[in-house]
């Protein structure tokens, strides 16, 4: 993996007159020594896995802690009534994001994109897009390369780990990746892709990682919905021609600096924030009693 900046990807794309996603595909071919077909087949299998994970969602089960499960079913029932303020695309994105997060908490098979805790963001956006738009499978796979390229740059020059950079590094990164992918699907070029990613990440800077009882459940699952919705909102703004005043690569650099400055008590250590509230303490105590 050779890209430290989004501008390195777009420069190659412009020089060689190939799309953003193809730069990432060719880099993967070189990096892992695989053919184009092999790389695309692997990416296709990721799409198949998220499609299956979404279809197999089971609202009747809950996680080992008892904190997670069933919310995706509630949102689906609410959507089916058809009188929500946000009927249609957005509500379904929210539903799918929460469902995938819950499936993860309930030990179902998912794809970490980029992490298990943020596994609902990109699938929510892409699977809803497939359902609402007449789009070829090939293009969705290309969009996953776009997402992967953005994720690689963030992982290399900042972080995708909550313990290292807070939740901005997990849900924020997933949101940026999803936004770039969506801008591409909507016909956006390099400019729209990187600004959709930048606008999304910019608006999730500073997010802490303070989950209750150290589990990937509260607030992680519902935050997947926020990441996914942000991706839709800011990719649309990018498609409208809105641009980030801060250069996209500088947004990623900022995320890195903010992540380092965040005190460790807010980076997956359970020492501050939501994790030490009265509600959280009650839950943690109940769990430790039942698990001793």
């Amino acid at each position, binding site marked *: 993996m050779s890209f430290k900046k989004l501008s390195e990807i777009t420069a190659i794309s412009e020089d060689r007159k190939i799309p953003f996603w193809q730069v990432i595909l060719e880099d993967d071919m070189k990096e892992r020594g695989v053919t184009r077909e092999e790389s695309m087949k692997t990416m296709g299998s990721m799409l198949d896995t998220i499609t299956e994970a979404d279809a197999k969602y089971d609202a009747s089960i809950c996680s080992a*802690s008892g904190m997670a499960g069933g919310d995706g079913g509630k949102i689906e029932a609410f959507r089916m009534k058809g009188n929500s303020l946000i009927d249609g695309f957005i509500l379904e994105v929210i539903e799918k994001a929460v469902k995938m997060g819950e*499936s*993860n908490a309930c030990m179902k098979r*998912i794809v970490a*994109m980029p992490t298990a805790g943020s596994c609902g963001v990109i699938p929510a956006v892409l699977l809803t897009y497939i359902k609402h738009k007449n789009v070829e499978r090939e293009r969705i796979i290309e969009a996953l390369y776009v997402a992967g390229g953005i994720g690689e740059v963030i992982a290399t020059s900042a972080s995708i780990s909550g313990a290292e950079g807070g939740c901005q590094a997990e849900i924020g990164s997933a949101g940026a990746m999803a936004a770039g992918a969506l801008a591409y699907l909507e016909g956006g070029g390099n400019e729209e892709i990187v600004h959709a990613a930048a606008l999304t990440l910019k608006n999730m800077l500073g997010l802490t990682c303070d989950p209750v009882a150290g589990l990937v459940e509260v607030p992680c699952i519902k935050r997947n919905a926020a990441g996914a919705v942000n991706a839709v909102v800011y990719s649309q703004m990018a498609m409208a021609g809105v641009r980030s005043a801060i250069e996209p690569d500088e947004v990623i650099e900022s995320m890195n600096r903010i992540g380092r400055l965040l005190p460790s008590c807010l980076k997956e250590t359970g020492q501050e924030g939501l994790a030490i509230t009265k509600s959280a303490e009650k839950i943690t105590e109940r769990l430790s009693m039942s698990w001793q």
Partner: protein
Amino acid sequence: MNLFDIIGPVMVGPSSSHTAGAVKIGYVARRLLGENVVSADIGLYGSFLATGKGHGTDAALVAGILGMKMDDDNIPNSLKIAKEKGIKVRFGKADIKDAHPNSVEIKLVGENGRQLSIVGESVGGSLINIAKIDGLDANFSGDFPTLIVHNQDQPGHVAEVTGMLAEKSVNIATMQLYRANRGGNAVMVIECDQEVPEKYLEWLKNLDGVNKVTYYSLIEEGENEF
């Protein structure tokens, strides 16, 4: 890190470190033992001990010991499966000090009486480090064919081993050397880009000054070796 560490891995949730990484540690331990497990003594440490239950770390470790990989649908049922197979599984606190926050000590006994103990660390994402084998330093990731040679600290052993690898066109990805003291017990841990042929491992085991040879292969048991 490659593209499919970002878009991937495919895994059973909820946590890449506490679940997927734990499966991988169990899996590597099982492969290093080289035979079916009849008993597993599992000591949890740090965050594995504190939050392992809620992350399914216990089921994940046992799933790996049963030979499952991190995307196996059966991971949540592993404790039940182990019981049905009559495998004795015991959980407790690990008796280790100053270890990585996500550490586990696994002691396995196999069907033919072979024994193995490892300390595994889940270091982030689904990446792992096997820190110790049978009490001696190891430090490898399980992502490469890995050759671990325990030998006397004498001149020439590194040359013998690396010379053998060169002869078989096995490229070294990483190599580490440790020793307890000058002239005492030493260990070399070599991660390779290709598999090391079985007969060279046998040759190595019979060398003077070589105390033990452990090999972790990426080739699945039951598959043909080429």
